[in-house]
């Protein structure tokens, strides 16, 4: 097997790893300073405000163009997800009702009954399944 110290691929991977560690440590040190916090929060505060204004403007523009905004699309996707969820719930309920009434031949199979809550840990003589 080739010695790792002479393997160019291993040397390259090691170098990337060391560079990552070194840069992270250096940046973390710099980020601990109060000056960093001051600058980041000044810039962050301004950009958050500007972003909000821009997104409000875009929203108005999209409304005027009769187009949906990203927020509306996300909201629609979430509503669809929620409808899907509710359909699943209804399906689960129907399965339950069907099961209780004794499902006719060809109907939905009844959901498996819940397993008994009698399991014991292996140390207490229970069996690990």
């Amino acid at each position, binding site marked *: *097997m*080739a*010695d790792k*110290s*002479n*393997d160019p*691929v291993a040397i390259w*991977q090691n170098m*990337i*790893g060391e*560079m*990552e560690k070194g*840069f*992270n440590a250096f*940046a*973390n040190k710099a*980020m*601990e*300073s*109060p000056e*960093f*916090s*001051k600058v*980041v*929060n*000044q810039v*962050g*505060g301004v950009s*958050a*405000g500007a*972003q*909000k204004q821009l997104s409000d403007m875009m929203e108005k523009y999209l409304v005027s163009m009769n187009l949906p905004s990203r*927020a509306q699309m*996300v*909201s629609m996707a*979430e509503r669809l*997800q*929620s409808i899907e*969820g*509710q359909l*699943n*719930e209804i399906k*689960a309920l129907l399965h339950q009702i069907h099961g209780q009434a004794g499902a006719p031949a060809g109907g939905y199979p009844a959901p498996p009954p*819940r*397993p*008994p*809550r*009698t*399991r*014991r*840990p*292996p*140390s*207490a003589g*229970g069996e*690990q*399944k």
Partner: protein
Amino acid sequence: MNATSGLDLASIPERIQAEVQRAIQRSIKGVEYIATSGPSLGSTPKDILSVRGTMNLYHYRPMADEIYRIPILIVMATTNRGYILDMVPGQSFIEFLLKRGYDVYMLDWTAPKPEEKSLAMEDYVLDFIPDCVRQVQQDSGETDVTVIGYCFGGVLSLLYGSIFAGGPMKNLICFTTPVDFREMKLFQNFSDRRYFDVDRLIDSVGNVPPEMILSSFEMLRPASRAASQVQLWENIWNDEYVKSYRMFDRWATDTLPLAGEYFRTITKDLMWDNKLYNDTMSVGGRKADISKITVPILHAVAEHDHIVPYDAAKPLIQKIGSADKEEVMLKGGHVSLVAGANAIKRLWPKLDSWLGERST
């Protein structure tokens, strides 16, 4: 072998051949990577018990013939999606629990809508969690419930457990849960009260955008994203590596926005005033003192956690009122503690042996 250089001369042609093959594979797989989507995550069969705004309660279908008496409610962190605990078959914590005979429920979160910006800490601790616990009790027919909280889900579970110390929480498991927020040094600096105007931020944006949450996580290790992309390119010939990269990358970038009022409380009460550690925390006028929690507790922490450093998590076991308490420190980071190869080998079996004895 060349004794002076340590270089195995005979292996050089083989190495060159292997590298050429990898280079060809990189080109083919690189195109495949762009053209295909990642593996489907969070696919363990489950039923949705309840959806209310940002709150989602799932029940996973049991996989064992016999299950433990006490059901589990997992409380997910509000910044991230719950599928980190249900990646793919064979690498899913949920699947592991189900196969070991636990009855598992999960309180997961979706992005709060703009009109949910007024959701406050009390909505999470005094409404969402108790509501889910009630539904778990109803659905399972059991009074006792084990609560598992991941990261900030652990903080919410601690607040819930300290306010409702009389029950029905029977056991508590926390993963990498911060208590002493002074020790989250970089987050402390990002939210320095002299420069960070949280009121102005919340009043202008409503909910805290996910990009902001993601960039604050990424700032903790600013070189890691670029380095991971270099590593991905090197390993793109390796299907298992690519699958794993895609799963974790998708989860890490799938950050949720945070409800404005809730974030305001986190910043002021926890980051600035460190109220949980100082025993002065209250939620909706109800005192939340973690020394009031007396149920058995297991706290799993990661040795190399860059998001919740050990010093921030350490006081949990010291301050909690339980007599039956254990902290377990495992190798790995914030995410690899609960998902990935280390978790499968270390955390999951440990948790099973601890919880099994307390779930009958």
